[in-house]
């Protein structure tokens, strides 16, 4: 795709523009807070305090961030190949089956470090399976992945209601959830990591899957920028026609990328199921797949951007709960608005401020060139 905008220095491209977009998104969110009749600054104070004020709060923030790193990576991997995977939500939901099966099977007999790898493989496999069909349908049958993944989200949701109310629910129980896992199905918390910084984790569910998320982020970086497959993916994302000309199998890449994307989304299920609730509940994904879209857009699809973006959304989720507690007029739905605004300004309107910033850079560049000339003379 041709880029009609002037080239900016790297720090402006990857730092300044996302920052400006983010600030605008938050300013608009502040307007909504004003409309509700509350003080935006006070809300911001409660949010930051609620997200970082105590070791326990930080634990919750990072717990949410873990989830969003997985879904953000999932969306980003697909973006690199020019595919928009809106289905991370459904893939994460289906991925939960893999986690639940591993835990239900072995939690009574095996320690967590045996169950965990199996759950990783299971969740990734189920997530990848749910993404395989949309990918295959786009590659071979020409149906667009955006539409199919939306449809698959709804199908996943119906399927999971069926499974949790009819199949996976223990006999005699009314609640649509699996039984609670024994010790083998419970991931250890990262107390030691927090105590290095002198923080107390409290009741927060910050667990080992955070380390897996960091590992996955590194893995995605290696995949995209250090492997042949990653190169082929990026070629296809930038220009499908040149990819075709270079002999890159479009169908093959589409299917593989969708499966990797789905697998990453599936891994997300580890965090809430094995890390917090110790059972699979109805609707445990809670929109994390969609947050992944905002995270990937804000992090510019780069793992180094996705991790801070995920932490920011973790902060919104945890701090948002605190705002809801302190200022009842602002419920947690405020986060949904902010999420939408971030997607709008960092995604769809990402070029809105680019011409102005580009002009500013151009004029600064001219001025310094002139200054250099006069100094030289």
């Amino acid at each position, binding site marked *: 795709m041709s880029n009609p905008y002037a080239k900016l220095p790297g720090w402006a491209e990857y730092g300044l523009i996302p920052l400006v977009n983010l600030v605008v998104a938050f300013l608009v969110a502040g307007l909504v807070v004003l409309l509700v009749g509350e003080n935006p600054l006070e809300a911001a104070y409660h949010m930051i305090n609620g997200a970082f004020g105590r070791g326990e709060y930080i634990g919750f923030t990072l717990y949410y961030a873990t989830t969003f790193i997985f879904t953000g990576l999932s969306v980003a991997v697909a973006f690199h190949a020019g595919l928009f995977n809106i289905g991370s939500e459904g893939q994460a939901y289906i991925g939960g089956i893999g986690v639940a099966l591993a835990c239900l099977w072995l939690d009574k007999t095996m320690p967590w470090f045996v169950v965990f790898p199996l759950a990783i493989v299971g969740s990734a496999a189920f997530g990848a399976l749910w993404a395989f069909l949309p990918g295959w349908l786009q590659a071979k049958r020409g149906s667009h992945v955006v*539409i199919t993944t939306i449809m698959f989200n*709804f199908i996943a949701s119906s399927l999971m209601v069926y499974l949790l109310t009819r199949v996976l629910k223990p006999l005699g129980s009314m609640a649509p959830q699996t039984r609670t896992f024994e010790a083998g199905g419970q991931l250890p918390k990262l107390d030691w990591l927090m105590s290095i910084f002198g923080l107390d984790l409290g009741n927060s569910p910050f667990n080992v899957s955070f380390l897996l998320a960091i590992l996955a982020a590194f893995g995605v970086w290696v995949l995209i920028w250090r492997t042949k497959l990653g190169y082929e993916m990026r070629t296809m994302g930038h220009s499908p026609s040149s990819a075709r000309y270079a002999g890159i199998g479009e169908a093959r890449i589409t299917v593989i990328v969708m499966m990797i994307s789905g697998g990453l989304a599936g891994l997300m299920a580890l965090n809430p199921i094995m890390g917090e609730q110790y059972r699979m509940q109805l609707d445990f994904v809670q929109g994390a797949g969609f947050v992944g879209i905002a995270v990937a857009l804000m992090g510019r699809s780069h793992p180094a951007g996705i991790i801070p973006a995920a932490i920011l959304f973790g902060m919104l989720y945890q701090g948002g709960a605190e705002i809801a507690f302190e200022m009842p007029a602002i419920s947690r739905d*405020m986060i949904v608005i902010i*999420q939408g605004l971030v997607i709008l300004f960092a995604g769809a*309107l990402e070029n809105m401020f680019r011409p102005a910033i580009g002009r500013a850079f151009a004029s600064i560049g001219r001025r310094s060139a002139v200054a250099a000339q006069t100094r030289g003379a």
Partner: protein
Amino acid sequence: MEFFHTIIAILESTIRVSVPLIFAALAGLFTERAGVFDIGLEGKMLGAAFAAGAVAAVTGSVIMGLLAAILISVLLSLVHGYASITQRGSQIVSGVAINFIVAGSTVILGEAWFKQGGRTPALAGDARFQTVTFPFADAVKDVPIFGPIYSNLLSGHFILTYVAFLLVPFSWWILYRTRFGLRLRAVGENPGAVDTAGISVIWLRYRAVICCGILCGFAGAYLSLAMSAGFVKGMTAGKGYIALAALIFAKWRPVNIMLACLLFGFLDALAIRLQGNPLPLIGQVPVQLMQALPYILTVILLAGFIGKAIPPKAGGIPYVKER
């Protein structure tokens, strides 16, 4: 006779649940035929339903409610238009963003203004659409076969229901028999050619997006002013996506859209009816399967197993004039 009455009852609720789908799918038809994909139908419908419920509750006038719904929906459409036409951003991303912004703000604003847990106050009297009874509907009620069809199935719906069904031929006429419609379809297939003919692609697409906003406004107003008496949070419950599925299922054609919406509405009505009752020959069908069926059918259609759904050629691609 018992069976006949059951059929009539199911068909009646089919019509009731299909109406918002028809409005929303026709809304999608206008933008997508002009080359602007819109997965924000859900959000626009929800925003319109909230505006309608809130304004009708405050002013006590159903017309004001409808106008507010259209206004909000058109404004949201213009945001989508600005992002995807003027700023040439991703149309999908913009649609997703609008869905989230609306989902959150309707709850926050509704709670702040009315303090009823995200609902708007219950509407009654002039603040809500009333059903229309056809002449002699009561008189012919007991005539076998014809009676129930006339007085239950055809008569006794909201005015917006009839508007929705009349909009189907009207949309067809606009798209296929007017100059505006021809240009609109052309801009979705080959915007370069339209531009060469000296017609503004940008303005044409904006008009298509505004049409979409107006129709989504009707869809939302139907939900909160006719189908229910007031706005409930998240009341669209995925109808915007079902409408999108219907639009694709109908291969972007007006009459097919009506049939697809009726089919999906029928599945919905049947699912409610069948809850707990086994189906003859097939036995017990899980409700979840019925609920997922519209999506499954759309996926199968898209995969080219039932005919082929070919989207407008320039759909999803922002138009860049040659420089």
